[in-house]
């Protein structure tokens, strides 16, 4: 039988792009900017 027949869990994630844009890194970046570290 084919490999795909074994699958019971999702193998691919197609809708991840719009999710979790704001995560830990975004928070860290915001904190750095607020601390005035950013050079312009």
């Amino acid at each position, binding site marked *: 039988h084919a*490999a795909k027949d074994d699958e019971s869990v*999702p*193998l691919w994630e*197609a809708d991840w*792009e719009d999710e979790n*844009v704001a995560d830990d*890194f975004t928070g860290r*970046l*915001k904190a750095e*900017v607020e601390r005035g570290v950013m050079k312009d």
Partner: protein
Amino acid sequence: IEVSRLFDNAKQAHKVTLRYYTGRLAAYDEDFARADEHLSYAFEHCAASSPGNVRRVLRYLIPVKMLLGVLPSPALLTKYGLPEYEPVRRAVAGGDLALLLSSLEANQARFIQCGTYLLLEKLQAVVARRLLRKVAAVNAQMNPAKAHQVPLALLEEALRLQGIEKDPLELQCLIANLIFRKYVKGYLAYKSRVLVLAKAEAFPALSAVQLSDPFAG
């Protein structure tokens, strides 16, 4: 018609082999939609009793899918024993350019041997786009009146947080490339060092992006 009849009558194993190599060829030609079609066929029809062959197909299918905006699930990587793609997946999902570069370097010999290194290297644009999207979100929160005007200094800071120092010209070049290939809709205001994003759909779906060089060939 004759070729099609031959294909229909061929053994399943031969069909899978043909689609695998046709998919690889399409990936080298940067025709990722076609590569996805052929390699997905090979993956879906490859015998489960040949895990080595399934892995061979996945080594190409995974980067091709990621270039088209589809991530492999952690379960898929575990099941088929492809741990080298785990940090690449995380880098794409999180917009972590430093992680992508370090995982490419750490697995360089393996990726080159499998013939996927150049394919994986193209993910830099996908990762940079994700990072830019995060930077744009921070900018929108901090400066809602100018949400569509992203200072390049903010992107520089984001890269610095990842341990990447980029020359200002190099950074402009990176963004110009993202705009040229339609990863991002907008324009660079060079004098004010600001990326002005389009008000609608500034980050078009990856499947709609121009992945190959429009001037090549």
